[in-house]
Protein backbone atom coordinates (compact mmCIF):
# COMPACT_ATOMS: atom_id res chain seq x y z
CA UNK A 1 0.00 0.00 0.00
CA UNK A 2 2.77 2.40 0.97
CA UNK A 3 4.67 1.59 -2.17
CA UNK A 4 1.62 2.27 -4.33
CA UNK A 5 1.04 5.67 -2.78
CA UNK A 6 4.74 6.46 -3.09
CA UNK A 7 4.71 5.61 -6.78
CA UNK A 8 1.53 7.63 -7.21
CA UNK A 9 3.14 10.51 -5.38
CA UNK A 10 6.02 10.54 -7.85
CA UNK A 11 3.60 10.86 -10.76
CA UNK A 12 1.58 13.70 -9.25
CA UNK A 13 -0.17 12.17 -6.24
CA UNK A 14 -3.65 13.53 -5.64
CA UNK A 15 -3.45 15.48 -8.90
CA UNK A 16 -3.97 12.17 -10.67
CA UNK A 17 -7.47 11.81 -9.23
CA UNK A 18 -9.31 13.61 -12.06
CA UNK A 19 -7.46 11.41 -14.57
CA UNK A 20 -8.37 8.26 -12.67
CA UNK A 21 -11.95 9.45 -12.48
CA UNK A 22 -12.04 10.14 -16.22
CA UNK A 23 -10.55 6.73 -17.00
CA UNK A 24 -13.07 5.01 -14.76
CA UNK A 25 -15.92 6.90 -16.40
CA UNK A 26 -14.58 5.93 -19.83
CA UNK A 27 -14.97 2.27 -18.94
CA UNK A 28 -18.39 2.71 -17.36
CA UNK A 29 -19.85 4.89 -20.11
CA UNK A 30 -18.54 2.79 -22.96
CA UNK A 31 -19.31 5.24 -25.75
CA UNK A 32 -16.21 7.40 -26.45
CA UNK A 33 -18.17 10.23 -28.03
CA UNK A 34 -20.52 10.62 -25.05
CA UNK A 35 -17.54 10.36 -22.75
CA UNK A 36 -15.70 13.12 -24.58
CA UNK A 37 -18.71 15.44 -24.47
CA UNK A 38 -19.25 14.78 -20.78
CA UNK A 39 -15.58 15.27 -20.00
CA UNK A 40 -15.52 18.64 -21.73
CA UNK A 41 -18.70 19.63 -19.91
CA UNK A 42 -17.22 18.49 -16.61
CA UNK A 43 -13.99 20.39 -17.16
CA UNK A 44 -15.90 23.53 -18.13
CA UNK A 45 -18.13 23.27 -15.08
CA UNK A 46 -15.09 22.58 -12.92
CA UNK A 47 -13.36 25.72 -14.15
CA UNK A 48 -16.41 27.89 -13.52
CA UNK A 49 -16.79 26.45 -10.05
CA UNK A 50 -13.08 27.07 -9.52
CA UNK A 51 -13.64 30.75 -10.24
CA UNK A 52 -16.40 30.83 -7.65
CA UNK A 53 -14.54 28.82 -5.01
CA UNK A 54 -10.95 30.08 -5.22
CA UNK A 55 -11.73 33.35 -3.45
CA UNK A 56 -13.56 31.64 -0.62
CA UNK A 57 -10.65 29.30 -0.06
CA UNK A 58 -8.02 32.06 -0.02
CA UNK A 59 -10.15 34.32 2.17
CA UNK A 60 -10.51 31.57 4.70
CA UNK A 61 -6.87 30.61 4.50
CA UNK A 62 -5.57 34.12 5.04
CA UNK A 63 -7.83 35.42 7.78
CA UNK A 64 -9.72 32.41 9.10
CA UNK A 65 -12.86 34.10 7.80
CA UNK A 66 -15.62 31.94 6.38
CA UNK A 67 -17.97 34.03 4.30
CA UNK A 68 -21.36 32.37 3.93
CA UNK A 69 -22.40 35.32 1.83
CA UNK A 70 -19.86 34.38 -0.85
CA UNK A 71 -22.57 32.91 -3.04
CA UNK A 72 -24.27 36.31 -3.15
CA UNK A 73 -21.34 37.49 -5.30
CA UNK A 74 -22.00 34.57 -7.64
CA UNK A 75 -25.66 35.53 -7.95
CA UNK A 76 -24.96 39.21 -8.40
CA UNK A 77 -22.34 38.45 -11.02
CA UNK A 78 -24.82 36.32 -12.95
CA UNK A 79 -27.60 38.89 -12.84
CA UNK A 80 -25.44 41.92 -13.53
CA UNK A 81 -23.91 40.17 -16.53
CA UNK A 82 -27.34 39.05 -17.75
CA UNK A 83 -28.61 42.62 -17.54
CA UNK A 84 -25.62 44.04 -19.41
CA UNK A 85 -25.95 41.38 -22.10
CA UNK A 86 -29.67 42.09 -22.42
CA UNK A 87 -28.97 45.81 -22.77
CA UNK A 88 -26.41 45.10 -25.48
CA UNK A 89 -28.52 42.52 -27.30
CA UNK A 90 -28.01 44.47 -30.55
CA UNK A 91 -24.26 43.98 -30.38
CA UNK A 92 -24.66 40.32 -29.45
CA UNK A 93 -26.89 39.48 -32.35
CA UNK A 94 -24.71 41.38 -34.83
CA UNK A 95 -22.75 39.33 -37.28
CA UNK A 96 -19.61 41.07 -36.15
CA UNK A 97 -17.26 39.20 -33.88
CA UNK A 98 -15.71 42.39 -32.54
CA UNK A 99 -19.08 43.72 -31.36
CA UNK A 100 -19.81 40.28 -29.87
CA UNK A 101 -16.58 40.31 -27.96
CA UNK A 102 -17.07 43.90 -26.84
CA UNK A 103 -20.51 43.08 -25.39
CA UNK A 104 -19.23 39.97 -23.64
CA UNK A 105 -16.21 41.80 -22.24
CA UNK A 106 -18.40 44.59 -20.95
CA UNK A 107 -20.67 42.07 -19.23
CA UNK A 108 -17.73 40.35 -17.56
CA UNK A 109 -16.13 43.65 -16.59
CA UNK A 110 -19.43 44.82 -15.12
CA UNK A 111 -19.72 41.63 -13.06
CA UNK A 112 -16.11 41.95 -11.97
CA UNK A 113 -16.44 45.60 -10.96
CA UNK A 114 -19.58 44.80 -9.05
CA UNK A 115 -17.75 41.97 -7.30
CA UNK A 116 -14.86 44.28 -6.34
CA UNK A 117 -17.21 46.90 -4.93
CA UNK A 118 -19.44 44.39 -3.14
CA UNK A 119 -16.36 42.65 -1.78
CA UNK A 120 -15.03 45.91 -0.39
CA UNK A 121 -18.39 46.64 1.22
CA UNK A 122 -18.68 43.14 2.70
CA UNK A 123 -15.19 43.17 4.15
CA UNK A 124 -15.22 46.61 5.70
CA UNK A 125 -18.83 46.87 6.81
CA UNK A 126 -20.04 43.33 7.45
CA UNK A 127 -17.07 41.18 8.38
CA UNK A 128 -14.43 43.42 9.94
CA UNK A 129 -16.34 43.91 13.21
CA UNK A 130 -16.51 40.16 13.78
CA UNK A 131 -12.99 38.95 13.00
CA UNK A 132 -11.91 36.10 15.27
CA UNK A 133 -15.48 35.18 16.20
CA UNK A 134 -16.60 32.27 14.05
CA UNK A 135 -20.07 31.97 15.47
CA UNK A 136 -21.01 35.59 14.82
CA UNK A 137 -19.16 35.52 11.51
CA UNK A 138 -21.29 32.65 10.25
CA UNK A 139 -24.48 34.28 11.52
CA UNK A 140 -23.70 37.72 10.11
CA UNK A 141 -22.56 36.54 6.71
CA UNK A 142 -25.65 34.33 6.60
CA UNK A 143 -27.78 37.39 7.39
CA UNK A 144 -25.99 39.28 4.62
CA UNK A 145 -26.75 36.41 2.24
CA UNK A 146 -30.46 36.58 3.09
CA UNK A 147 -30.51 40.33 2.51
CA UNK A 148 -28.58 39.99 -0.77
CA UNK A 149 -30.98 37.37 -2.08
CA UNK A 150 -33.90 39.58 -1.21
CA UNK A 151 -32.32 42.50 -3.03
CA UNK A 152 -31.89 40.31 -6.11
CA UNK A 153 -35.54 39.28 -5.85
CA UNK A 154 -36.63 42.89 -5.50
CA UNK A 155 -34.51 44.12 -8.41
CA UNK A 156 -34.75 41.26 -10.91
CA UNK A 157 -37.95 39.56 -9.76
CA UNK A 158 -38.50 35.90 -9.02
CA UNK A 159 -39.14 34.68 -12.55
CA UNK A 160 -36.34 33.01 -14.53
CA UNK A 161 -34.34 35.33 -16.77
CA UNK A 162 -33.01 34.27 -20.15
CA UNK A 163 -29.34 35.03 -20.67
CA UNK A 164 -28.25 35.99 -24.16
CA UNK A 165 -25.04 34.55 -25.54
CA UNK A 166 -22.81 36.23 -28.07
CA UNK A 167 -23.23 34.84 -31.57
CA UNK A 168 -19.68 33.57 -31.88
CA UNK A 169 -19.97 31.37 -28.79
CA UNK A 170 -23.18 29.68 -29.96
CA UNK A 171 -23.12 26.27 -31.52
CA UNK A 172 -20.69 23.42 -31.32
CA UNK A 173 -17.62 22.03 -32.98
CA UNK A 174 -18.03 18.59 -34.46
CA UNK A 175 -14.90 16.47 -34.39
CA UNK A 176 -15.67 13.02 -35.74
CA UNK A 177 -18.82 12.04 -33.88
CA UNK A 178 -17.93 14.16 -30.86
CA UNK A 179 -19.75 17.45 -30.48
CA UNK A 180 -18.25 20.09 -28.24
CA UNK A 181 -20.11 23.25 -27.33
CA UNK A 182 -17.97 26.29 -28.03
CA UNK A 183 -19.17 28.05 -24.90
CA UNK A 184 -17.74 25.24 -22.78
CA UNK A 185 -14.34 25.61 -24.36
CA UNK A 186 -14.53 29.33 -23.73
CA UNK A 187 -15.55 28.83 -20.08
CA UNK A 188 -12.74 26.34 -19.60
CA UNK A 189 -10.22 28.69 -21.19
CA UNK A 190 -11.27 31.66 -19.08
CA UNK A 191 -11.11 29.62 -15.88
CA UNK A 192 -7.72 28.25 -16.82
CA UNK A 193 -6.45 31.76 -17.56
CA UNK A 194 -7.69 32.89 -14.15
CA UNK A 195 -5.96 29.96 -12.48
CA UNK A 196 -2.67 30.62 -14.25
CA UNK A 197 -2.93 34.31 -13.40
CA UNK A 198 -3.57 33.55 -9.73
CA UNK A 199 -0.82 30.97 -9.70
CA UNK A 200 1.73 33.39 -11.13
CA UNK A 201 0.75 36.18 -8.78
CA UNK A 202 0.95 33.87 -5.79
CA UNK A 203 4.22 32.23 -6.76
CA UNK A 204 6.14 34.90 -8.60
CA UNK A 205 5.39 38.16 -6.83
CA UNK A 206 6.18 39.60 -3.43
CA UNK A 207 2.49 40.18 -2.80
CA UNK A 208 1.82 36.53 -3.53
CA UNK A 209 4.65 35.53 -1.22
CA UNK A 210 3.02 37.53 1.55
CA UNK A 211 -0.35 35.89 0.88
CA UNK A 212 1.12 32.40 0.92
CA UNK A 213 3.06 33.11 4.09
CA UNK A 214 -0.01 34.72 5.66
CA UNK A 215 -2.14 31.68 4.94
CA UNK A 216 0.38 29.58 6.82
CA UNK A 217 1.09 31.84 9.78
CA UNK A 218 -0.55 35.23 9.89
CA UNK A 219 1.01 36.26 13.20
CA UNK A 220 4.54 35.68 11.99
CA UNK A 221 4.02 37.76 8.85
CA UNK A 222 2.86 40.59 11.07
CA UNK A 223 5.85 40.12 13.35
CA UNK A 224 8.00 40.60 10.25
CA UNK A 225 6.43 44.00 9.79
CA UNK A 226 3.54 43.55 7.34
CA UNK A 227 -0.08 44.53 7.84
CA UNK A 228 -1.99 41.39 6.83
CA UNK A 229 -5.33 43.08 7.44
CA UNK A 230 -4.58 45.60 4.68
CA UNK A 231 -3.56 42.82 2.35
CA UNK A 232 -6.65 40.88 3.27
CA UNK A 233 -9.11 43.45 1.96
CA UNK A 234 -7.40 43.19 -1.41
CA UNK A 235 -7.62 39.41 -1.40
CA UNK A 236 -11.24 39.63 -0.34
CA UNK A 237 -12.10 41.98 -3.20
CA UNK A 238 -10.29 39.86 -5.78
CA UNK A 239 -11.97 36.72 -4.44
CA UNK A 240 -15.37 38.35 -4.64
CA UNK A 241 -14.70 39.58 -8.16
CA UNK A 242 -13.67 36.08 -9.26
CA UNK A 243 -16.89 34.71 -7.78
CA UNK A 244 -18.88 37.30 -9.70
CA UNK A 245 -17.09 36.40 -12.95
CA UNK A 246 -17.77 32.74 -12.20
CA UNK A 247 -21.44 33.63 -11.75
CA UNK A 248 -21.45 35.54 -15.03
CA UNK A 249 -19.95 32.60 -16.88
CA UNK A 250 -22.38 30.24 -15.20
CA UNK A 251 -25.30 32.42 -16.32
CA UNK A 252 -24.18 32.07 -19.93
CA UNK A 253 -23.73 28.34 -19.45
CA UNK A 254 -27.19 27.77 -18.01
CA UNK A 255 -28.84 30.41 -20.23
CA UNK A 256 -31.78 30.55 -17.82
CA UNK A 257 -31.14 31.88 -14.33
CA UNK A 258 -33.21 32.30 -11.17
CA UNK A 259 -32.36 33.93 -7.83
CA UNK A 260 -31.93 30.42 -6.42
CA UNK A 261 -28.71 30.11 -8.44
CA UNK A 262 -26.49 31.46 -5.67
CA UNK A 263 -27.84 29.06 -3.07
CA UNK A 264 -27.43 26.07 -5.37
CA UNK A 265 -23.88 26.98 -6.28
CA UNK A 266 -22.97 27.66 -2.65
CA UNK A 267 -23.39 23.97 -1.82
CA UNK A 268 -21.14 22.99 -4.72
CA UNK A 269 -18.59 25.65 -3.77
CA UNK A 270 -18.46 24.46 -0.17
CA UNK A 271 -18.01 20.87 -1.25
CA UNK A 272 -15.17 21.97 -3.54
CA UNK A 273 -13.26 23.87 -0.87
CA UNK A 274 -13.75 21.08 1.65
CA UNK A 275 -12.50 18.48 -0.82
CA UNK A 276 -9.62 20.63 -2.02
CA UNK A 277 -8.49 21.78 1.41
CA UNK A 278 -8.75 25.35 2.62
CA UNK A 279 -6.27 28.01 1.62
CA UNK A 280 -4.67 26.68 -1.56
CA UNK A 281 -5.76 27.40 -5.12
CA UNK A 282 -4.21 24.17 -6.36
CA UNK A 283 -6.45 22.26 -3.98
CA UNK A 284 -9.46 24.28 -5.05
CA UNK A 285 -8.78 23.59 -8.71
CA UNK A 286 -8.44 19.90 -7.99
CA UNK A 287 -11.67 19.85 -5.98
CA UNK A 288 -13.52 21.84 -8.64
CA UNK A 289 -12.44 19.52 -11.46
CA UNK A 290 -13.38 16.44 -9.45
CA UNK A 291 -16.80 17.88 -8.64
CA UNK A 292 -17.41 19.03 -12.21
CA UNK A 293 -16.45 15.69 -13.73
CA UNK A 294 -18.36 13.66 -11.14
CA UNK A 295 -21.49 15.74 -11.58
CA UNK A 296 -21.46 15.23 -15.34
CA UNK A 297 -20.54 11.55 -15.36
CA UNK A 298 -23.03 10.61 -12.67
CA UNK A 299 -25.66 12.85 -14.24
CA UNK A 300 -25.31 10.67 -17.34
CA UNK A 301 -24.92 7.28 -15.67
CA UNK A 302 -27.44 7.68 -12.82
CA UNK A 303 -29.30 11.01 -13.07
CA UNK A 304 -31.10 10.55 -9.76
CA UNK A 305 -27.82 10.42 -7.89
CA UNK A 306 -26.40 13.58 -9.45
CA UNK A 307 -26.53 15.83 -6.39
CA UNK A 308 -25.90 13.12 -3.85
CA UNK A 309 -22.80 12.13 -5.85
CA UNK A 310 -20.95 15.26 -4.73
CA UNK A 311 -21.86 14.46 -1.17
CA UNK A 312 -20.58 10.90 -1.53
CA UNK A 313 -17.38 12.20 -3.12
CA UNK A 314 -16.91 14.61 -0.22
CA UNK A 315 -17.54 11.96 2.42
CA UNK A 316 -15.12 9.57 0.79
CA UNK A 317 -12.38 12.17 0.54
CA UNK A 318 -12.88 13.40 4.10
CA UNK A 319 -12.63 9.86 5.41
CA UNK A 320 -9.38 9.46 3.50
CA UNK A 321 -7.92 12.93 4.11
CA UNK A 322 -9.73 14.76 6.91
CA UNK A 323 -8.21 18.12 5.96
CA UNK A 324 -8.98 17.84 2.26
CA UNK A 325 -6.64 16.91 -0.56
CA UNK A 326 -4.22 19.86 -0.59
CA UNK A 327 -4.77 22.06 2.47
CA UNK A 328 -2.48 25.03 2.99
CA UNK A 329 -3.73 25.54 6.52
CA UNK A 330 -3.48 22.72 8.97
Amino acid sequence: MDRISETLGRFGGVYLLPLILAALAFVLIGAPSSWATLTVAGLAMGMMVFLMASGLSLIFGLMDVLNFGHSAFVSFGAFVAASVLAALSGWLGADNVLLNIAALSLAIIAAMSFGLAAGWFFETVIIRPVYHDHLRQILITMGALIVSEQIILAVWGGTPITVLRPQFLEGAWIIGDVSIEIYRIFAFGLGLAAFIGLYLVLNRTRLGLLVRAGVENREMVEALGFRIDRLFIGVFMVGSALAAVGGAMWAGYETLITPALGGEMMIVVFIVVIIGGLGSIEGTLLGALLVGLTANYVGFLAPKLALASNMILMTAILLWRPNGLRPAVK
Partner: protein
Amino acid sequence: MSLLTLDHMKTNIGQYAVLHDVSLEVPEGGVFVLLGRNGAGKTTTLRSIMGLWKPAPGTVRFDGTDLTGMHTADIARRGIAYVPENMGIFGNLTVEENLILATDKGRFDQSRLKRITTLFPALERFWTKQAWSLSGGQKQMLSVARAIVEPRRLILIDEPTKGLAPAIVAAMAEAFTEISREATLLLVEQNFHFARSIGRDMAVIDNGRVVHSSSMADFAADKPLQDRLLGLS
Protein backbone atom coordinates in the same frame (compact mmCIF):
# COMPACT_ATOMS: atom_id res chain seq x y z
CA MET B 1 18.96 55.06 28.97
CA SER B 2 17.57 51.56 28.57
CA LEU B 3 16.67 50.35 25.11
CA LEU B 4 13.50 48.63 26.32
CA THR B 5 11.52 49.47 29.44
CA LEU B 6 8.55 47.48 30.68
CA ASP B 7 6.67 49.44 33.30
CA HIS B 8 4.27 47.39 35.46
CA MET B 9 3.01 45.48 32.44
CA LYS B 10 -0.11 43.36 32.95
CA THR B 11 -1.55 41.06 30.29
CA ASN B 12 -4.83 39.19 30.24
CA ILE B 13 -5.56 36.36 27.82
CA GLY B 14 -9.30 36.03 27.60
CA GLN B 15 -10.48 36.21 31.17
CA TYR B 16 -7.25 34.94 32.62
CA ALA B 17 -4.62 37.27 34.02
CA VAL B 18 -1.29 35.83 32.89
CA LEU B 19 1.07 38.69 33.65
CA HIS B 20 0.42 40.52 36.91
CA ASP B 21 3.33 42.90 37.15
CA VAL B 22 6.31 42.78 34.84
CA SER B 23 8.83 45.60 35.05
CA LEU B 24 12.14 45.30 33.24
CA GLU B 25 14.99 47.49 32.07
CA VAL B 26 16.83 46.00 29.13
CA PRO B 27 20.01 47.98 28.45
CA GLU B 28 21.32 48.48 24.93
CA GLY B 29 23.76 45.83 23.68
CA GLY B 30 24.53 42.34 24.88
CA VAL B 31 22.26 39.44 25.77
CA PHE B 32 19.52 39.78 28.36
CA VAL B 33 18.11 36.49 29.57
CA LEU B 34 14.65 35.90 31.00
CA LEU B 35 14.56 32.83 33.21
CA GLY B 36 11.69 31.13 34.96
CA ARG B 37 9.68 27.97 35.31
CA ASN B 38 7.26 26.64 32.71
CA GLY B 39 4.12 28.74 32.57
CA ALA B 40 5.68 31.61 34.52
CA GLY B 41 4.83 34.11 31.78
CA LYS B 42 8.09 34.40 29.81
CA THR B 43 6.55 33.75 26.41
CA THR B 44 3.63 36.02 27.24
CA THR B 45 6.10 38.78 28.06
CA LEU B 46 7.74 38.50 24.64
CA ARG B 47 4.37 38.34 22.89
CA SER B 48 3.17 41.38 24.79
CA ILE B 49 6.23 43.37 23.74
CA MET B 50 5.56 42.34 20.16
CA GLY B 51 1.92 43.42 20.42
CA LEU B 52 0.63 39.89 19.79
CA TRP B 53 -1.12 40.07 23.13
CA LYS B 54 -2.29 43.50 24.16
CA PRO B 55 -0.92 44.45 27.59
CA ALA B 56 -3.82 45.98 29.52
CA PRO B 57 -2.44 48.71 31.78
CA GLY B 58 1.27 49.40 32.00
CA THR B 59 3.54 50.48 29.20
CA VAL B 60 6.20 49.15 26.87
CA ARG B 61 8.76 51.77 25.90
CA PHE B 62 11.27 51.08 23.19
CA ASP B 63 14.02 53.60 22.58
CA GLY B 64 11.85 56.32 24.06
CA THR B 65 8.70 55.43 22.08
CA ASP B 66 5.58 54.05 23.73
CA LEU B 67 4.66 50.80 21.95
CA THR B 68 1.52 50.13 23.95
CA GLY B 69 -1.50 49.52 21.70
CA MET B 70 0.57 49.67 18.51
CA HIS B 71 -0.01 47.13 15.75
CA THR B 72 2.47 44.23 15.67
CA ALA B 73 3.63 45.17 12.19
CA ASP B 74 4.41 48.74 13.26
CA ILE B 75 6.29 47.47 16.29
CA ALA B 76 8.37 45.25 14.02
CA ARG B 77 9.10 48.20 11.71
CA ARG B 78 10.52 50.14 14.65
CA GLY B 79 13.32 47.63 14.82
CA ILE B 80 12.19 44.65 16.86
CA ALA B 81 12.45 41.13 15.48
CA TYR B 82 10.77 38.06 16.96
CA VAL B 83 11.87 34.44 16.94
CA PRO B 84 8.96 32.50 18.47
CA GLU B 85 9.22 29.27 20.36
CA ASN B 86 7.71 27.27 17.49
CA MET B 87 10.14 29.13 15.19
CA GLY B 88 7.29 30.40 13.01
CA ILE B 89 8.91 29.42 9.74
CA PHE B 90 6.74 29.09 6.63
CA GLY B 91 6.99 25.42 5.74
CA ASN B 92 5.50 25.73 2.25
CA LEU B 93 7.98 28.44 1.33
CA THR B 94 11.59 27.79 0.39
CA VAL B 95 14.47 28.87 2.61
CA GLU B 96 15.15 31.72 0.20
CA GLU B 97 11.51 32.83 0.24
CA ASN B 98 11.43 32.71 4.03
CA LEU B 99 14.40 35.05 4.15
CA ILE B 100 13.40 37.38 1.35
CA LEU B 101 10.04 37.83 3.02
CA ALA B 102 11.86 39.36 5.97
CA THR B 103 13.54 42.04 3.86
CA ASP B 104 11.96 45.46 3.87
CA LYS B 105 12.21 46.02 0.12
CA GLY B 106 12.08 42.52 -1.35
CA ARG B 107 15.81 42.15 -2.09
CA PHE B 108 18.82 41.13 -0.09
CA ASP B 109 21.61 43.37 1.04
CA GLN B 110 24.55 41.28 -0.19
CA SER B 111 26.84 41.95 2.77
CA ARG B 112 24.14 40.96 5.27
CA LEU B 113 23.36 37.86 3.24
CA LYS B 114 27.03 36.94 3.32
CA ARG B 115 27.02 37.32 7.09
CA ILE B 116 24.01 35.00 7.41
CA THR B 117 25.51 32.29 5.24
CA THR B 118 28.73 32.53 7.21
CA LEU B 119 26.88 32.15 10.50
CA PHE B 120 24.62 29.36 9.22
CA PRO B 121 26.24 27.59 6.26
CA ALA B 122 23.53 24.89 6.29
CA LEU B 123 20.95 27.38 5.03
CA GLU B 124 22.85 27.97 1.82
CA ARG B 125 22.89 24.24 1.12
CA PHE B 126 19.09 24.03 1.39
CA TRP B 127 18.49 27.41 -0.25
CA THR B 128 15.75 26.25 -2.66
CA LYS B 129 14.27 23.52 -0.45
CA GLN B 130 10.87 23.98 1.16
CA ALA B 131 11.38 24.84 4.79
CA TRP B 132 9.29 21.99 6.19
CA SER B 133 11.95 19.58 4.98
CA LEU B 134 14.66 21.10 7.24
CA SER B 135 15.75 19.51 10.50
CA GLY B 136 14.78 21.12 13.81
CA GLY B 137 18.17 22.79 14.21
CA GLN B 138 18.12 24.13 10.66
CA LYS B 139 14.64 25.50 11.19
CA GLN B 140 15.90 27.31 14.27
CA MET B 141 18.80 28.71 12.27
CA LEU B 142 16.40 29.88 9.57
CA SER B 143 14.20 31.54 12.14
CA VAL B 144 17.14 33.38 13.70
CA ALA B 145 18.56 34.26 10.27
CA ARG B 146 15.21 35.77 9.33
CA ALA B 147 15.46 38.07 12.33
CA ILE B 148 18.79 39.51 11.17
CA VAL B 149 18.13 39.86 7.44
CA GLU B 150 17.51 43.53 8.12
CA PRO B 151 19.39 45.35 10.87
CA ARG B 152 17.18 45.26 13.97
CA ARG B 153 17.97 46.88 17.29
CA LEU B 154 16.23 44.33 19.50
CA ILE B 155 15.68 40.64 18.83
CA LEU B 156 13.27 38.66 20.98
CA ILE B 157 14.14 34.96 21.01
CA ASP B 158 11.97 32.35 22.69
CA GLU B 159 13.70 29.16 23.88
CA PRO B 160 16.10 28.73 20.97
CA THR B 161 17.80 25.63 22.36
CA LYS B 162 14.71 23.59 23.07
CA GLY B 163 15.09 20.09 21.67
CA LEU B 164 18.38 20.81 19.89
CA ALA B 165 21.46 18.58 19.88
CA PRO B 166 24.42 19.83 22.01
CA ALA B 167 26.56 20.55 18.97
CA ILE B 168 23.90 22.81 17.50
CA VAL B 169 23.37 24.51 20.86
CA ALA B 170 27.07 25.39 20.89
CA ALA B 171 26.82 26.80 17.36
CA MET B 172 23.78 28.82 18.45
CA ALA B 173 25.70 30.28 21.41
CA GLU B 174 28.44 31.39 19.05
CA ALA B 175 25.94 32.90 16.63
CA PHE B 176 24.15 34.79 19.40
CA THR B 177 27.41 36.24 20.70
CA GLU B 178 28.22 37.40 17.17
CA ILE B 179 24.72 38.86 16.62
CA SER B 180 24.79 40.66 19.96
CA ARG B 181 27.62 42.89 18.69
CA GLU B 182 25.08 44.58 16.45
CA ALA B 183 21.76 44.13 18.25
CA THR B 184 20.39 43.62 21.73
CA LEU B 185 19.06 40.13 22.38
CA LEU B 186 16.23 39.42 24.79
CA LEU B 187 16.33 35.70 25.29
CA VAL B 188 13.84 33.43 27.02
CA GLU B 189 15.66 30.32 28.17
CA GLN B 190 15.07 27.23 30.29
CA ASN B 191 18.59 25.91 29.87
CA PHE B 192 20.48 27.74 32.61
CA HIS B 193 23.93 26.62 31.52
CA PHE B 194 23.34 27.98 28.04
CA ALA B 195 21.91 31.19 29.51
CA ARG B 196 24.88 31.65 31.80
CA SER B 197 27.33 31.19 28.98
CA ILE B 198 25.98 34.05 26.87
CA GLY B 199 23.90 36.31 29.15
CA ARG B 200 25.15 39.65 30.46
CA ASP B 201 22.04 40.64 32.40
CA MET B 202 19.10 38.57 33.53
CA ALA B 203 15.73 38.52 35.25
CA VAL B 204 13.55 35.79 36.67
CA ILE B 205 9.81 35.72 36.10
CA ASP B 206 7.56 33.69 38.32
CA ASN B 207 3.80 33.53 38.32
CA GLY B 208 3.49 36.59 36.10
CA ARG B 209 5.84 38.78 38.15
CA VAL B 210 9.50 39.75 37.93
CA VAL B 211 10.95 38.32 41.12
CA HIS B 212 14.63 39.02 40.52
CA SER B 213 16.79 41.11 38.24
CA SER B 214 20.55 41.49 38.22
CA SER B 215 23.66 40.91 36.20
CA MET B 216 24.26 37.33 35.16
CA ALA B 217 27.57 37.24 37.02
CA ASP B 218 25.89 38.10 40.32
CA PHE B 219 23.14 35.59 39.82
CA ALA B 220 25.53 32.83 38.76
CA ALA B 221 27.51 33.38 41.93
CA ASP B 222 24.51 33.07 44.24
CA LYS B 223 23.77 29.36 44.27
CA PRO B 224 21.02 29.44 46.96
CA LEU B 225 19.15 32.14 45.01
CA GLN B 226 19.27 30.00 41.87
CA ASP B 227 17.92 27.02 43.78
CA ARG B 228 15.10 29.08 45.25
CA LEU B 229 14.04 30.82 42.03
CA LEU B 230 14.62 28.16 39.43
CA GLY B 231 14.21 25.01 41.44
CA LEU B 232 17.49 23.67 40.08
CA SER B 233 19.21 20.93 42.00
